[in-house]
């Protein structure tokens, strides 16, 4: 065996079967932990759900009280010779059990919102995706070409990067009020926040990626008679495309984190509004369901993008096929 094979070999590939098992485990372990904490009453369960209030005046059925208070009250009742309260160990309201979240997950698509005028989960989600889409697209339309120019020409690098470098340290949320003042209270300022959060990073990241292109490829093209424009068009852009694609996947993830900030600016909307609203109603199952959906959307998008990337940039594969 030696140190070169087995599960814990340093920087050696793991077999496909083992890989599949580990991927499943990486999701199964957190879920199992959640189940354990939820269903095994001897684990944690710091509160008590009252099943019968006994003679304790302020206890009510279904009420959640802290274990210590429950014990203290029952002790009082005992010394007074009154009826003790009965209850089951329970978890706090902010940690719903998996099955409850699953039910809520389903119900969030089938039951209408509590109040008229409030949006369904999928409507909120749709709105959020729209905000991200436009913020990210607008940022990319300007940011990617600008980044490529900065990475290719010293002129643009020195003209643009210092300011961008300064600006990216300004947290996007501080522009919230300004964005509302300029763009009104609807989607405008939200898209602007996503834009600000993405754009400045994007320019620098793309510029860096562009600079990583092997200079000898450019030199080879020069000796083959390529003009500057031809080099930009036929060498720089195709050469960095796979890496830019990877950068964009990462940047898209960042855009999602700015969403939360964007959605509390002006009128609260989208998935953030939905989560806050459900938390207000103490519907934590719904909160969890919404968070899960965001995670699933993120994971799926990334997997689809990764798959498409592999298809598009097949020339990067390092295998001899014949």
């Amino acid at each position, binding site marked *: 065996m030696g140190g070169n094979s087995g599960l814990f070999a340093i920087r050696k590939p793991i077999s496909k079967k083992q890989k599949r098992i580990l991927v499943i485990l990486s999701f199964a372990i957190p879920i199992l932990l959640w189940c354990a904490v939820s269903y095994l009453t001897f684990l944690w369960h710091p509160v008590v759900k009252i099943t019968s209030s006994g003679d304790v005046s302020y206890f009510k059925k279904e009420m959640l009280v802290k274990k210590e208070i429950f014990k203290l009250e029952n002790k009082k009742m005992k010394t007074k010779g009154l009826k003790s309260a009965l209850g089951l160990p329970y978890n706090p309201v902010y940690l719903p059990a998996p099955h409850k979240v699953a039910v809520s997950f389903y119900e969030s698509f089938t039951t209408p919102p509590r109040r008229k005028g409030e949006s369904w989960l999928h409507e909120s989600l749709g709105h959020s995706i729209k905000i991200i889409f436009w913020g990210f697209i607008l940022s990319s339309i300007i940011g990617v070409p600008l980044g490529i120019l900065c990475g290719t020409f010293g002129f643009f690098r020195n003209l643009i990067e210092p300011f961008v470098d300064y600006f990216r340290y300004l947290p996007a949320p501080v522009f919230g009020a300004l964005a509302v003042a300029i763009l009104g209270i609807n989607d405008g300022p939200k898209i602007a926040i996503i834009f600000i959060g993405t754009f400045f990073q994007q320019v620098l990241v793309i510029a860096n990626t562009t600079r990583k292109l*092997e200079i*000898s*490829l450019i*030199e*080879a*093209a*020069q*000796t*083959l*008679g*390529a*003009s500057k424009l*031809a080099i930009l068009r*036929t*060498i720089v852009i*195709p*050469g960095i*495309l796979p890496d830019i694609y990877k950068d964009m996947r990462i940047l898209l993830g960042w855009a999602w984190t700015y969403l939360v900030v964007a959605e509390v600016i002006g009128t609260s909307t989208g998935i953030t509004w939905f989560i806050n609203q459900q938390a207000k109603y103490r519907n934590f199952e719904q909160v969890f369901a919404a968070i899960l959906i965001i995670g699933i959307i993120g994971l799926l998008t990334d997997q689809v993008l990764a798959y498409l990337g592999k298809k598009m*940039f*097949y*020339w*990067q*594969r*390092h*295998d*001899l*096929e*014949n």
Partner: protein
Amino acid sequence: MDELNLTGYKKQSQKVKERFDRLKQREVVLKVENLCKTFDDKKGPILKDVSLKTYRREFTSIIGPSGCGKSTLIRLIAGLEDIGSGKIIVNDEEIDGPGIERGMVFQGYTLFPWLTVVENIMYGLRRKGESKTEARDNALTWVKIVGLQKYEDAYPSQLSGGMKQRVAIARSLATHPKMLLMDEPFGALDAQTRSTMQSYLLQIWKNINISVVFITHDLEEAIYLSDRIIVLKANPGEIAEIIEVPVSRPRTPEQFFTPEFLETKKRLEELIHPKSNEPEEKIKIVKLTQAGDDVF
């Protein structure tokens, strides 16, 4: 005895002598005049007062110890660096930047990884303004010349090092340059592939009208391939000697053991690793074994 050895590499057979006489009758393709180049003023010039010329269809090698500026010299000829002072004249025209009449093959693999073998060879032709079909037809001829028909639609990541360099050579030659500049093109290849590539290059060179300037640090490679060898010395990079290789053509690997080959190699070694007067530094031998079992 010493005297005889020193001049041995200068002795040329009648055949070789006639060849050089004919060579020098041809037009000059490249003329380098009093070339100087400094990157860093503190370190002094990397190339100092280099003058040389190469003739049509001549195979010239540039050789020298590391840091002698041989790579800088070829990059200057290619137009990839700005000239400090002096002149580089190719085909009676002073160069200014890279040009299509000077093809270059680099040490690292510089095939465009997103293009197939044919598309790589088409690249220069397309820049010249050839239509897609025209460029493709021409490129396919070159694919055949370098013997990679089976791989015409393969991507560089699917090729071995030797194949990659063959495509790179074809790509440079497809646009019909006057000169082929090669910067240690076989440096990254294993010994076996390397010697195949050398014979291969000689064959191509023999069949087309091109002058080659070839950088290497491999003495045998330089002798085997070249008409003349320009030897540079380091700090600053100056021409130490220009050697006319006395080995007759066509060259074969068997010639590696002929007296003229060995004499030339000996002279190159003397030039590149000059014997210094300082005593050699002795490496202290540290005893690694505890018990008295001396290994040495």
